[in-house]
């Protein structure tokens, strides 16, 4: 929360700020005020449901698979949630992940460079794409929906066009035999065992991002700026919040996560298909919304986005373990999105009424 003088709505409670928080409230009250409460209830419901509906759902192997599926969405859902709290949208995230992987792999292959050089170049390029999104937003004053829709289409075309031009095919050349591949794979796409469960390294990246984003949101000045910029940009500006810088920063953050996801794709599969990633941007947004982010900005949490991603992972894998027709998956996803959002809205109303 910025200074009490702003018109921005209250941020989630954190004991260190603003006067109304000094009033001691009971624990259930405190819990009710959290943005991710609805998502937690939903996640427990989904877990219990599949525990009964699917025989293998509770086995260690299945747990690893579910966590991996969740982490691939979750890594992106964290910065997308922050961006939505900041009051903006990004539709280019899905293909940006693919772009990032393509840049890395093609640069390394064509230049016969150490794989890490490609990874570095990819980081610069991906951050530049994110920066471009943010800059266009603050310069043109167009809605972020339009700007990132443009970026989304441009990237989709660039992915296909460049790959065809450079590799002469629709997927990149394999780089598995190049220098630095093994060490990069260890960082981005290795796995380890934890008490019989096989965990992918993406789960660690995911957790790290959630912790970092939560710390930024609740413990730093930048976090206050994000809430203020999303809650009411003009009011925030009036009290000296650097709204433009904050938004550009948020888009760059999204790009960073896209880079992590993209490198994971590359080092897990060693070659990248140029046409993939389209449509995933909605999954990230869905995870953030189920986790309690508002479409209007100014409210939400990073932990919520992680729980949203977990719900997604449990459902997408649970349907397979329950041996249902895959055709129903999207229906469930949509129904869950509606239910979770309704639940969130209801919980928030109750919380505000009892403040």
């Amino acid at each position, binding site marked *: 929360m910025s200074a009490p003088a702003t018109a921005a709505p209250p941020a989630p409670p954190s004991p260190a700020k603003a006067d109304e928080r000094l009033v001691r409230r009971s624990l259930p009250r405190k819990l009710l005020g959290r943005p991710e409460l609805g998502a937690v209830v939903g996640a427990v419901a989904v877990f219990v449901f599949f525990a009964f509906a699917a025989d293998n759902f509770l086995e260690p192997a299945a747990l690893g698979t579910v966590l991996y599926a969740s982490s691939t969405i979750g890594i992106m859902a964290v910065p997308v949630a922050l961006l939505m709290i900041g009051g903006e949208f990004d539709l280019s995230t899905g293909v940006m992940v693919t772009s990032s992987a393509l840049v890395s792999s093609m640069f390394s292959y064509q230049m016969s460079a150490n794989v890490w050089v490609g990874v570095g170049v990819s980081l610069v390029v991906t951050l530049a794409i994110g920066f471009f999104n943010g800059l266009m937003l603050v310069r043109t004053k167009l809605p972020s929906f339009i700007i990132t829709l443009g970026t989304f289409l441009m990237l989709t075309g660039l992915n*296909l066009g460049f790959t065809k031009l450079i590799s002469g095919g*629709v*997927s990149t050349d394999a780089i598995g035999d190049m220098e630095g591949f093994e060490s990069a794979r260890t960082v981005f796409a290795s796995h380890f065992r934890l008490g019989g469960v096989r965990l992918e390294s993406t789960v660690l990246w995911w957790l790290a991002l959630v912790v970092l984003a939560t710390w930024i949101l609740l413990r730093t000045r930048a976090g206050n700026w994000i809430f203020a910029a999303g809650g009411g940009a003009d009011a925030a500006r009036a009290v000296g919040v650097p709204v433009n810088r904050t938004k550009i920063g948020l888009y760059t953050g999204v790009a960073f996560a896209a880079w992590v996801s993209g490198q994971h794709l590359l080092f897990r*599969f*060693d070659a990248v298909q140029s046409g993939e990633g389209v449509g995933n941007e909605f999954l990230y947004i869905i995870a953030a919304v189920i986790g309690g982010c508002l479409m209007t900005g100014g409210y939400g949490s990073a932990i919520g986005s992680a729980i949203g991603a977990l719900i997604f992972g449990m459902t997408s894998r649970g349907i397979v*373990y329950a041996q249902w027709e895959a055709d129903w998956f*999207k229906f469930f996803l949509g129904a869950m999105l509606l239910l979770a959002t309704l639940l969130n809205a209801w919980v928030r109303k109750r919380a505000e009424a009892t403040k």
Partner: protein
Amino acid sequence: MARAHRGVRIAGAVLAAVLGTTLAGCSSTGGKQAEEGSGDKSGGRSAAGTPEWTFAMVTHSGDGDTFWDIVKTGAEKAAAKDNIKFLYARHDEGQQQAELVQSMIDQKVDGLIVTLAKPQAMKDVVGKAVKAGIPVITVNSGSADSKEFGAITHIGQDETIAGEAVGEELNKRGKKKAICVLHEQGNVGHEERCDGARSTFDGTMENLYVEGTNMPEVQSAIEAELQSDQSVDTVLTLGAPFAATAVKAKESAGSKAEINTFDLNPAVLKGLEKKELGFAVDQQPYLQGYQAVDLLWLYRYNADVLGGGRPVLTGPQIIGREDAGKLKSYIERKTR
């Protein structure tokens, strides 16, 4: 309360009206009744006498794909005959497809059928299945990688060979200038088909990329291509639904080009009969599904392997106008 009652009454009236119109508006031709007459009558009882094994099939099919529906029908038929519990999952992104295979391994299935449209993405997970002692059969796409990944057999059509057959057929028909319509950017098999056709075709062949999920866009793209070059005498589409679209595009462009296509469906059949289409190249999807399950069963039951280390080919079959009549009833019951 009164309002609620009125609501119920209105709903009842609407329902009655809908039912009434449905009954009054019966069609005496086509529709469900025509389909029911041509079904197969096996009752799905198993005759295998082997324990109930579980086989899983994971494909790269997108949502609502006719072709893959037929593959699945064939697989289910064989599963019913062989006393197999059959699981099916699909995703059109390589990474997700690999994840689905992982889920099947988690469930300790007794056999696995996968497509390798995105071979790199599938490599690790197929290796895992083989290591876990699950016999793997690849279908439809991936003949090049099947053996290396440790699969026991590959069943499908070699896309390059199929393309070459098309090129030869076009030469027979005396064609000079063709366009090859690719409806999925990023599909390796599609590229192979067009390249194969180009290699044996004596005329020139150009690639036209269209967005397969958006039919109006496909039509206008083909239209524009035909309008801009009247000397094009052949359009080759790579999927049955796109043949009908190409016919429409040809009509509105006023072109004389012959439309030919890969794969079959009822519309393609009608098109062949009406001479709107020249020929279709069939790869027998039903056979791919059926054989995959059957061969897995044979492997488990008797350690039999078909193909002698080479892919088992289910195509290409060139289907012309005279063959169309024979296949009519099969296509109508959705098994060809």
